[in-house]
């Protein structure tokens, strides 16, 4: 009985924590430790769409180009609704002379 109550409480806690649900995040390293370096490179390099991402938030196989693809897909989904919403807004107020 105690075990099942503990399990239920643990599950409830897991459900309300802001967990990265499906990500392979880096383990916590503590405040002000393990942060990426802030050194600036002098040479600018364009984004390489096939290059693996440079973040601990990525899942295996993610590339820099995945962000652009996801953004375009989401923009296509939102566009019709955004048009309707914009049409529902009152016209801009005319500037006073």
């Amino acid at each position: 009985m105690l075990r099942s109550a503990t399990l239920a409480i643990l599950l409830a806690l897991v459900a309300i924590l802001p967990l990265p649900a499906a990500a392979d995040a880096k383990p916590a390293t503590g405040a002000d430790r393990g942060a990426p370096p802030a050194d600036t490179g002098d040479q600018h390099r364009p984004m390489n769409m096939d290059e693996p991402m440079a973040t601990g938030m990525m899942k295996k196989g993610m590339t820099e180009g995945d962000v652009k693809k996801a953004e375009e897909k989401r923009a296509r989904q939102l566009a019709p609704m955004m048009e309707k919403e914009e049409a529902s807004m009152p016209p801009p107020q005319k500037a006073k002379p």
Partner: protein
Amino acid sequence: MKKIMGERFAEYRSPEIERIERRLFLRRGLSLGALALLSGCNITDQESVQNMLLGMSKWNDRVQGWLFDPTKLAPTYPESAITKPFPFNAYYDEDQVPMIDGNDYRLELAGLIRERKPWSLPELYALPQASQITRHICVEGWSAIGKWSGTPFRIFLERIGADTSAKYVGFKCDDDYYSSIDMATALHPQTLLAFRYADQILPAKYGFPMKLRVPTKLGFKNPKHIRAIFVTNEYPGGYWEDQGYNWFSGS
């Protein structure tokens, strides 16, 4: 005699016993509910596990939204606490940061906004400004304290005639990143449209020409290099959020 005592005992239920029984019932109910959640999916089935986790994450968003206090401030720090150097973090390397010409730059507006004219940087810099020294907390497990300055986002939203009863504010960025926040957070007094870091125009590596600084949320909810802002009632998601990271992500 024994039988009579037993019957009497069964009939007499003290309030204490009833309270204990109610607690047991609630505990068992909670346990059963939790077990039902687990048994409802086959843990060898990746898709059903993902769906269950996403469902849990959406519920988590709702709970965090209910618990969010729009007047409670994130801790602030003295200048001596600022992390030097402040870390760079993005999904690409530092030498791939987008190079944006401030002279040509225009902030685009869309959705439930009355005044949707684009804004130039001098127009944005002329808005009321505020500064904050707060802690940026990354979902990766590190944190750092920095100083950001800019216009309180609430002031900007009011200035452009945004429908502040809408559910979401979305952001599109010049590095293709996108994210969104709830309106309560957008109106929070510490949410800044930041144009400066450490009293200097925001360097490219920290998000020139502007980033949204939200000290009540995790770092990935602080989009950099913002190109467009939109207000909507349609769930706009976000790059990491669409990959399974929690959407609300309060810090």
